[in-house]
């Protein structure tokens, strides 16, 4: 097999939402052409409503109504998606929800107790999602994404509406899960500090152009990411225009 250096190639020439009421057609994305390197942690950032989630849904295969193409390194690439709301099945326990990401009889099902332990949900394994906190539901959602050992993991603002310490704990958990089993991640957020702390590469989107306006590699080593001042300095460098 030939060596391919991109895990994912995104080519969206245009994505248009149909006209709503009296407003005309609404172009949300155009001329987006990206090569995503294997095992890179790419953060997509920009103001709300600029089409970040739309792009993620296109990559996930949930939105096929666009002009362009999405190519994966291997055609049967496993995709995981960690949504903005946890989207757990309320009538299944935490453990069942995590296991449902895997097909019946999959050998990775044996990893579930280790995974529950890693995300700190061993005690809550048999609880129903609506009976635990939002932070715990988010942990379950992370576990469901990672147990699949996806080739590409999509994340749509998975830590919004949490208090700061809880969000910070979950970011550390994400870094831990990622470093144990690196995979290609496409992560959407409008939180710049979060973007710099997590990313190896930052893509900035902007409402006016409906496209990528800045593509920047993050110059931080693994140990620099827990150093607040280094993260702030890097954030100032990348977002220097504002």
């Amino acid at each position, binding site marked *: 097999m030939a060596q391919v250096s991109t895990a994912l190639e995104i080519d969206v020439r245009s994505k248009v939402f149909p006209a709503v009421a009296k407003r005309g057609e609404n172009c949300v994305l155009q001329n987006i052409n990206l090569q995503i390197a294997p095992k890179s942690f790419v953060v997509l950032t920009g103001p709300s409503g600029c089409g970040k989630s739309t792009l993620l849904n296109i990559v996930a295969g*949930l939105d096929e109504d666009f002009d362009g193409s999405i190519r994966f390194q291997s055609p049967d690439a496993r995709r*995981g*998606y960690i*949504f903005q709301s946890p989207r757990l099945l*309320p009538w299944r326990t935490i453990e069942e929800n995590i296991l*449902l990401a895997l097909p019946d009889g999959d050998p990775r099902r044996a990893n579930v107790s280790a995974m529950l332990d890693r995300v700190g949900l061993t005690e809550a394994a048999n609880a*129903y999602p609506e*009976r635990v906190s939002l932070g715990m539901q988010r942990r379950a959602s992370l576990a469901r994404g990672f147990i*699949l050992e996806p080739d590409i993991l999509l994340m749509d603002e998975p830590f919004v509406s949490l208090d700061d310490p809880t969000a910070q704990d979950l970011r550390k958990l994400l870094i831990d899960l990622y470093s144990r089993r690196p995979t290609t991640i496409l992560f959407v957020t409008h939180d710049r500090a979060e973007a710099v702390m997590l990313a190896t590469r930052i893509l900035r989107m902007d409402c006016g152009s409906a496209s990528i306006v800045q593509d920047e590699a993050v110059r931080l080593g693994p140990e620099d990411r827990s150093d607040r001042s280094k993260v702030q300095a890097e954030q100032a460098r990348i977002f220097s225009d504002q």
Partner: protein
Amino acid sequence: MVEFLTSKRAFWSFGSLFVLLLFWHLCAEIFQHRHLPTPVAVFDTFLREVRSGNLLYHVWVTLLRVAVSFIVAMFIGSAIGLVMGRLPNVDRFFDSWLIFFLNLPALVIIVLCYVWFGLTEVAAIIAVAINKIPNVAVTVREGARSLSRDLSEMAMVYNFGWAKTLRHVTLPQMAPFFAAAARSGLSLVWKIVLVVELLGRSNGVGFQIHTAFTTFDVPMILAYAIAFIVVVQLIEISLLQPIEARVNRWRR
């Protein structure tokens, strides 16, 4: 069941039923009419019918008809409701049919079934089922319309496939609607079964009530009616309520 019998709710239910019996007894004593028997007289008739074996036989026959037509109506009505709830074009087309059948009087359906299919068991079951199907379809359609898009997207991304999606995503969301259809269904179906029996069957509670009517035997009518109410309530408490509690156990 045991839990229910010792609960506070049971105390209130039985207490109020006792007051109703007392009221009935007083009315019967005051009016002293042979068409208004006392509860004691009705109970005597009930015991006589139980001893002769008549009551158990007719109640059993009626229960079988209720069960078969209930199951048929639930299956067909749910299938129609699911399809109409998911496919807007089918819904638009068949909506007026549904309204037609919802408003068609039960008696007309029963009479027409007997005319077209003869005075047979199959005609009786079809008549009851047709009466119930539109109600089930309307309730289930409401559920199918309100299915969560978020969860179906999740199922799609994680490659659930149709069987897994149906079992873990769709049916649990539909459960409250099935339960509502089943509950209103049971009480509707058994009332219609009695009419069907009265008009064209030679056994069952409806037939017995018809026979009693020809001789104005009110104690007999009440004995059969009350016996059947008790049976239906027992089914409700021992079967439908536990199923409902089980499918709702995840709720906060």
